[in-house]
């Protein structure tokens, strides 16, 4: 019992232990912790254009640092989150957003997976239905005799 508890504890630590996130370090951050936190959240949603699968929050690229400075400036100037994002989208396009917006050009991107899932489900269901249920034939006399022979106690 005790052992199991220890094992469980180890498992929990392995799964639930908080991973250390890489965060780019800037010399200049916002004085107000609330604004800095907001800026950080916005940065998490903005994609670095140099190292494409990182957000600018964690990217070490020089351009990401420049963009972080702009985000902080806009936040300090009183922009809302969406105004800050719009500022960068105007320059770099939707591409700069980690979560692409839902619109006509991204319809396949967003709707594709659920549509495929539904189509797959339908195909599976239709396939199941078409497959005939196996008809059980009663054992013949010879088979019954063999069964008795096999299962008979010595």
């Amino acid at each position: 019992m005790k052992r199991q508890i220890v094992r469980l504890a180890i498992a929990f630590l392995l799964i639930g232990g908080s991973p250390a996130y890489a965060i780019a370090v800037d010399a200049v951050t916002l004085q107000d912790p609330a604004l800095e936190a907001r800026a950080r959240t916005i940065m998490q949603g903005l994609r670095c254009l140099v190292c494409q699968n990182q957000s600018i929050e964690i990217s070490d690229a020089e351009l990401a640092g420049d963009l972080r400075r702009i985000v902080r400036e806009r936040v300090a100037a009183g922009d809302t989150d969406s105004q800050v994002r719009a500022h960068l989208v105007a320059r770099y396009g939707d591409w700069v957003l980690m979560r692409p917006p839902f619109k006509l050009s991204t319809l396949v991107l967003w709707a594709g997976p659920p549509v495929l899932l539904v189509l797959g489900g339908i195909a599976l269901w239709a396939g199941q239905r078409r497959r005939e249920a196996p008809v059980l034939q009663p054992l013949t006399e010879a088979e019954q005799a063999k069964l008795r022979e096999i299962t008979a106690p010595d």
Partner: protein
Amino acid sequence: MRWRSFIPLILVSLLAAVLFVGLGLDPKIVPSALIDKPVPQFDLPPLPGKEPGLIAADLAKGQITLLNVWASWCGPCRIEHPQLMEIAKTTDVRMIGLNYKDDPAKALAFLKQLGDPFASVGADRTGRVAIEWGVYGVPETFLIDGKGRIVMKHVGPLRPEDIPEKILPAIKAAAQ
């Protein structure tokens, strides 16, 4: 019922077609948000001797302009430079440089060594104006029509074949 047996073949063919096109795209090329938009209204002081720098208002005065973002520390810019020299020599398009995060002395030495295709060069020491242009790496090249609208963007070095295939047709289209 026979046609049903072709469904997997059709699906695989579709998938192959999608992948054939999709995997041929270069994910490093980010589509520009500024095509058909007016140029960003930011001026840059000149690289010494390359006055008047980059004056946004000058880009809307009727002349077609090729704006090249470059730096002396950028290797691909060296590879691209002969192509810029050729465009300067063979067309009457005005060429303006945006010198990105560079040391002016080194930038001028670069032009002295490899030739100077630019009518003027703006010095963007902090890279701030380049961000207004949606630049995310050097070199990048923009074509601006006479009304100050960005009509084409090329990311990465211009290769010799890009001149007849991309630059000259774009210049021709912008002239109309």
